[in-house]
Structure formats: C-alpha cells, structure tokens
C-alpha cells in the first residue's frame, strides 16, 4: 500500500506516509479499530528512518485519524462521515491543483481545463 512513497519527491517522506494513510482511512481501506503497522515494521519495510514514521503517526494522531494506545500500538479511530467527506474533498482539491500546475506549464488556462473536465466526465462545471 505504500508503493508510491517516493524518496526523491520534494514532499517530505513523513507527509507522504501520513497522506497515504489518510487516503486509506477516508476510503475505508482502513476501518475504525484497525491497527497500523508498528513503527519498527513500517520503517524496516520502507527502509526509512524510524523517526519519519513516528512523525507521520504523530501528525495523524494530532488530526484525529488515529490514536496511540501505550504498549499496544496505533489504531484507526472512528471518523464522523463529515470528516471522511472532508478528507476526500481535500484529496480531490490536491489532485486538481496538480492538474492545474501541469496545465499551466503547457500554457493551458484554468477555463480550458474546466471545459475539458466537463467534457470528459459529463459533469458540468460552474464558471
């Protein structure tokens, strides 16, 4: 599930790991009460610094996605439907920002992208 973690990316590794887990929680790939891999397991599996995993888990805990039970591990918390929806909306906005940046590099403006998106999906966009 962490295949796309990319050490060459400018996005710090702990953010990539936390983001991947947020997606998994929002998509209910991880359900409430599921255990995350231990810091030791995940750091060895991804060959990243253990402190990177610790920081990712700390951020997830701060944002209410997981809780740490001392001696037992880190577990996914039950999320309100709105929180899950909010997270999905946030992911969608991030994807769109990437798309717009790529388009701008080719000299394609936001309006053209919006029209192409509407044509592709059949979902009208509001100008």
């Amino acid at each position, binding site marked *: 599930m962490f295949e796309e973690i990319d*050490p060459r990316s400018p996005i710090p590794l702990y953010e990539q790991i936390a983001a991947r887990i947020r997606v998994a929680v929002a998509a209910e790939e991880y359900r409430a009460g599921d255990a995350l891999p231990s810091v030791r397991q995940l*750091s*060895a599996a*991804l*060959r*990243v*610094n253990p402190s990177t995993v610790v920081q990712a888990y700390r951020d997830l805990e701060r944002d209410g996605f997981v809780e740490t039970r001392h001696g037992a591990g880190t577990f996914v918390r039950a999320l309100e439907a709105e929180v899950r929806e909010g997270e999905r909306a946030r992911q969608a906005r991030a994807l769109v920002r990437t798309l717009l940046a790529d388009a701008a*590099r080719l000299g394609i403006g936001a309006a053209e992208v919006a029209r192409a998106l509407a044509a592709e999906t059949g979902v009208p966009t509001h100008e």
Partner: protein
Amino acid sequence: MSEAIEVRGLGYRAGRSFALRDVSLTVPAGSIYGFLGPNGAGKTTTIRLLLGMSRREAGDVRLLGRSIPGELPAALSVVGYVPERPHVYPSLRVDEAMRCHAAFHRRWDDAWATRLQRMFELPDDRRIGRLSKGETGKLLMLLALAQRPELLILDEPTDGLDPMVRRDVLTALLDYVSESGATVFISSHLVHELERMCSWVGVLDHGRMVAELPIDVLKGGIKRIRLAEAPSNGQQLPFEVLSRAQDAFASSETWVVRGWSDPMVQYFDTAGATVREVIDLDLEEVFVELLRSGREVTR
C-alpha cells in the same frame, strides 16, 4: 550529551596529493547521518581518524562525549564499525568469527546474533575467505549490530552488494535503530539509498566539507529555476546562485540557486524577469550541484 560525533578542525595529510583540511562534523545523537562524497573525497580517511586508526595532525574528535584517542577504549566498547574492507580473518569459520567478536563485546546479544545469522542464511561452518561478497557484507553488519552499539559507523556498507542483499542489510540496520535509538553515521556514494533513511547529510569533497544540513533543509533550499528575460549578474540577490546556463532549444535560462524560498519569486518580478518553473531537485542532483559549485570556488 546531544552529539554522538563531534569533530572540529580535523587535519590530516597523506603523501603529497591528498589532505583533509579543517573538517568539522556534528552528528546529533539519534540521527541517521549520511556522509556523502565522491570516491577519493576522503570519507574512509575521515572514518579511520574518528576511530583512532590513523593519527590526525590537527583538530579534535569526540565520540559519544569521549575524547579520541585519549578515551578510545571506552568509546570503542559502544561503537559498531563496518569497514570498507573486511577486517575478519579469512581462515575463521562464521561461528568462530561470531564467538571471537562476542568475546570482545560485553553487550553482545547472542540470541539476536543467531536470529540475524538465520535471516542472512550464513552457514556456521563456512570459512570467511570462502564467503561471497554479499555474504561477507551481511556478516560484517551482523557483527556490528549484535554488539548492541550506541553508535554505528558504517563505511560504504552496501557498496558492491546486489539489491537483495542491500535490502536485507539495511532492513536489519533500521530494525535495530527503531528498537535501540542508536545513532548511525553511514558513508556512501549511493545517494538514492541514503535519501530515504537519513535525517542529516554531510558532503565531503577533496578533503573539505562542502555542506552539513538536515536533509529536508538541504533538499528544500536548492532549486532549479527556469527564467525568461533573466537579469544580468552583479546585482544583490536574496539567494546564492550555484550555476546559470542558457537553455538549449529555448530563449530561457536555467539557474540553480541555494537558500531559496517561494516569496523570492518577487525578486524576479521586480527585476523584469518571468519565472517559468521552479523545479525541485532530488538528493543526487543537489549533491552534484554542490560539488560543482564547491569546485568552482576553490579553483
């Protein structure tokens, strides 16, 4: 003690052609510190000086708060070392080498050594001289880890090993680090391997330190920028320009800058230039740019 390794003003000369000049290093306790440099930069020489294996001509070295070479025995009892070239007798068998090593290290963990031996598939009765390169690499890491060191000093521990063995060796290392909180000082020219593990990076070239920074700062502060109507040289710049070049097939220029932060785009706006792209560099590209600019300055 917050520094696992502290080196100040280290100097050493080897013959006429090579010298370490004024090398200073600070390795925070608990960090994984990548010691980068091209072949011949002086990485192994520096490591030998850290461990009291060569005699320095200037400077101070402290390992885990202990002065080197004065308190060398106390330091070495808690330092694990993987040398560039194997330092075990080729005529010993694997089990003999492990027993020999165990005798020297009070904190040796027999159960874990056996577990690593099984994981690394190292047969008891194989002579060291008959091990493959990959098996030798795994044995050296086993010997360094099973003594349960507070500090690991690894000199190109994966150089010349195949990807499978590299992965096994690094996995065992990181497993130990998560469990023990030990500090790791790892030299390599395999930049991509270090990119995912290191929290700090030091770059050595021609016997001098070129940079020493937390990896996120190093990667975040160096960018490649593509510019139209680039301003001429000689103005006050809010960042350092490592290199600039005219683009092939385009009228734009590409600059590599250090100390970049996004609001600096404004500088180009006021200078009448247009920033077409700000491109992030990976560690290998950062490394190459640092070496290139460092060499131009000293020339």
